[in-house]
């Protein structure tokens, strides 16, 4: 199929599409977001053009061209790079696009109010299924209809059948289309393109025009069979009539209102977990009685500074939650030995060894440079020859020995600094830091895939909560969410005061109320700043500057409350939240919809003589501005 693919050219694409079901070869991409492309064969003169469906994952939030260029350039200059970052070509790069020839696809089904599209092979087997993150599949279905001969199943109005070129149905259809003289009429396709290219108003105008064209084609023409009529009715209903009518209100506010979130509940912060509360949870052997209760209390109010030092060791998985007092004593002894053994490994390097060990020397140089630039305004780390800076360096260097492949990455010193400040003990701080790193490891990995995924997920969440803002960002070349990079890399360390960041981190470490809660906090902040972000047609540079300058100005307690409210909105929302629930580690609700098997239209003996169906049977046809703008979406250039 790869070679064949060279003869194809793109004729349609839509972004923001999550792969929901896939053949085993592409299972690893399930729940990834990507782009759907329809290709047509380039060969002219052929009566029948062939079409191919492709789904390609977004592997990055930045321009995909740049990304591919990067692989290319890296391969040619590999020797120059001492560290491994970015120099490993992704072995999946060639094989990850899901490509299916339309010869194989026999039917497709529109579900969840146009937000899900499933392709079948004609024997009730699902070939692949997609969730439309922004908007719905109407434009795609319309495009398919212009290229392929498609009829609707009699039994299920949402199930579309693709006719083979040699099937009697197709032959009949072909004749009927010829009779209608619109076979080579590009108006349908042109106006579908209009949706992509033109303004909202322009597109509406185009809809109106096409509706007229199709209607006038129908005028005075007797259609030879019912399928044709059915098919045309669908086209008209979906692409003209209903859109013009149903889009008018959403045009005014400019927001897709395909679904409504439940009302947001107000939450308040509680008092921090006190020493008394903590002690009351410890039994006679020093075991915590109700860990969930403790975690919930910490989520609701944080930890009182008087017991923070002890509680963080649990939150950061240094002490097991179920451990007894004596087990912890024994653990500390073992961990202390282990730490100093690792520290001795690098401390005992001779100068000559270091010179012969470039990878180590480079890591050491990075650590030394950054330690000197970490929280130096805090009294604890201030001044020349500060002993605490030395400890900071020793811990980071020992971590390099502990996890040499990861090494030292900028941002790590930010994460360690408050921990050491609190622990005042090198060994405890090290193991707590290890626990923190285990939680955020993917932020620092060589290919930066973790950061890219987080930025993408942030946009998905924002789009769910505030589609207008999400759409604005896409339209203003900010759909990649890069301006939030610093927030996510070091969990707002650079944005908050020392006390605030410690409170924030301990809240996040509880894992309540869901995973990736920091993304919801980010959504809350963006929503809070939405007017400022959208004023004066701010573009990427202005938004980046604005977000960078929020440092030191965030009311993090308020944002946690708002984020908690957003969490409950998503959690209480219906199946439409299925695209965002996996990001938060929540179970998907609408799985039943995915399991429903295709009702094979071929079983029906009277498929070609179906009666007239009411035009309004196609539900919820909407083309929102989101999906139009999403064309230029996340993949757009920064500048």
């Amino acid at each position, binding site marked *: 199929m790869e070679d064949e693919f060279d003869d194809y050219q793109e004729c349609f694409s839509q972004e923001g599409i999550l792969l929901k079901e896939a053949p085993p070869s592409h299972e690893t991409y399930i729940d990834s977001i990507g782009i759907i492309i329809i290709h047509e064969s380039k060969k002219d003169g052929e009566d029948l053009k062939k079409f191919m469906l492709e789904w390609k994952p977004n592997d*990055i939030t*930045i*321009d995909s061209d*740049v*990304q591919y*260029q*990067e692989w290319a*350039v890296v391969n040619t*200059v590999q020797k*120059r*790079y*001492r*560290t491994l*970052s*970015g120099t490993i070509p992704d072995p999946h790069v060639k094989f990850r696009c899901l490509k299916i020839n339309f010869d194989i696809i026999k039917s497709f089904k529109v579900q969840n109010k146009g937000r899900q599209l499933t392709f079948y092979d004609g024997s009730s087997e699902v070939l692949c299924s997609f969730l439309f993150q922004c908007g719905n599949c109407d434009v795609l279905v319309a495009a398919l209809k212009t290229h392929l001969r498609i009829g609707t199943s009699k039994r299920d109005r949402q199930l579309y059948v693709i006719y083979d070129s040699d099937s009697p149905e197709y032959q009949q259809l072909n004749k009927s289309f010829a009779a209608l003289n619109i076979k080579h009429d590009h108006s349908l396709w042109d106006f579908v393109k209009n949706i992509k290219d033109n303004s909202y108003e322009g597109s509406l105008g185009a809809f109106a025009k096409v509706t007229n064209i199709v209607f006038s084609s129908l005028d005075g023409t007797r259609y030879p069979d019912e399928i044709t009529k059915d098919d045309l009715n669908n086209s008209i209903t979906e692409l003209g009539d209903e859109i013009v009518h149903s889009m008018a209100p959403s045009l005014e506010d400019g927001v897709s209102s395909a679904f409504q979130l439940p009302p947001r509940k107000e939450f308040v912060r509680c008092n921090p977990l006190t020493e008394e509360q903590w002690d009351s949870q410890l039994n006679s052997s020093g075991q915590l009685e109700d860990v969930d209760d403790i975690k919930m209390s910490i989520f609701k109010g944080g930890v009182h500074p008087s017991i923070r030092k002890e509680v963080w060791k649990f939150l950061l998985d240094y002490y097991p939650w179920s451990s007894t007092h004596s087990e912890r004593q024994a653990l500390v002894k073992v961990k202390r030995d282990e730490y100093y053994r690792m520290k001795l490994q690098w401390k005992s390097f001779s100068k000559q060894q270091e010179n012969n060990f470039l990878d180590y020397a480079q890591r050491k*140089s*990075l650590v030394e*440079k*950054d330690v*000197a*630039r*970490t929280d*130096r*305004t805090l009294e604890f780390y*201030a001044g020349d020859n500060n002993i605490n800076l030395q400890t900071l360096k020793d811990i980071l260097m020992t971590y390099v020995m502990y996890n040499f492949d990861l090494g030292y*990455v*900028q*941002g790590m010193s*930010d994460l360690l600094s408050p921990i050491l400040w609190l622990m005042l003990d090198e060994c405890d701080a090290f193991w707590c830091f290890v626990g923190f790193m285990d939680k955020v490891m993917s932020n*620092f990995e*060589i*290919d*930066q895939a973790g*950061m*890219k995924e987080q930025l993408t997920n942030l946009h998905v969440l924002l789009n769910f909560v505030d589609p207008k803002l999400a759409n604005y960002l896409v339209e203003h070349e900010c759909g990649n969410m*890069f301006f939030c*990079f*610093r927030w996510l*890399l*070091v969990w707002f360390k*650079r944005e908050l005061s020392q006390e605030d960041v410690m409170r924030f981190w301990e809240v996040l470490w509880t894992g309540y109320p869901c995973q990736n809660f920091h993304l919801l906090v980010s959504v809350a902040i963006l929503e809070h700043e939405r007017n400022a972000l959208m004023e004066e047609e701010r573009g990427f*540079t*202005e938004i*980046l*500057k604005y977000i*960078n300058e929020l440092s030191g100005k965030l009311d993090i307690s308020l944002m946690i409350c708002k984020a908690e409210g957003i969490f409950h909105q998503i959690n209480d929302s219906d199946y439409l939240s299925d695209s965002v629930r996996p990001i938060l580690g929540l179970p998907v609700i609408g799985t039943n919809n995915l399991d429903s098997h295709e009702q094979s239209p071929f079983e029906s003996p009277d498929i070609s003589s179906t009666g007239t169906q009411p035009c309004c049977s196609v539900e919820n046809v909407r083309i929102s501005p989101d999906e139009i703008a999403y064309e230029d979406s996340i993949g757009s*250039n*920064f*500048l």
Partner: protein
Amino acid sequence: MRSASKNTLLKVVILGDGGVGKSCLMNRFVSNQFDEHSFHTIGVEFLNKDIEIDGETYTLQIWDTAGQERFKSLRTPFYRGSDICILTYAIDDKTSFNNLEMWRTEFSYYADVKENNQIPFIVVGNKSDVIAEEREVSQLEMETWCNENGITSCIETSAKNASNVQEAFKMAVQHWLRLESRADKNETDINDTVDLTKKSGDNRMSCCVGSSDD
């Protein structure tokens, strides 16, 4: 900002290894401040600053990125559309000097500059305030490297004591102006032999400047 004034807006990218003083150069130039204990940059930051040259005001939009190799893929998209690239090293850090070649290659690749246009690079050796014993890169080495790589502008600076910082940015703009005027001429007088003579004259004009306190 772009819309607020009629000044020519130039996008300037400062590149170089971590810890050579990219942010400090930017902050010294923009706000005439130096914070010895400032943070290392995470992500991307930028500041605007007007500069006047020969009676014309230019607005420099100065982009400062994280230097660690790891963040390459999140840094390189910002190179696109750059007018000027300041390649930076620290004179007390030989490795950072040796890596100039890598930075130049990376920038050239991602900046998407039109083939015929020469990219306006200038080389800045920062931390000229360090004591002589700590210097690892001589001015001659810098000039030699620049000559070998066809870079005509280089300067030693100190963001700490403000030496040559204004001059470095001024030099960058002047360099850009020379390339611009050359590009304009090329557009209007293609195949003009006189123009070619003029070009080679320009190339010979080096403006490498040493640190004032050397």
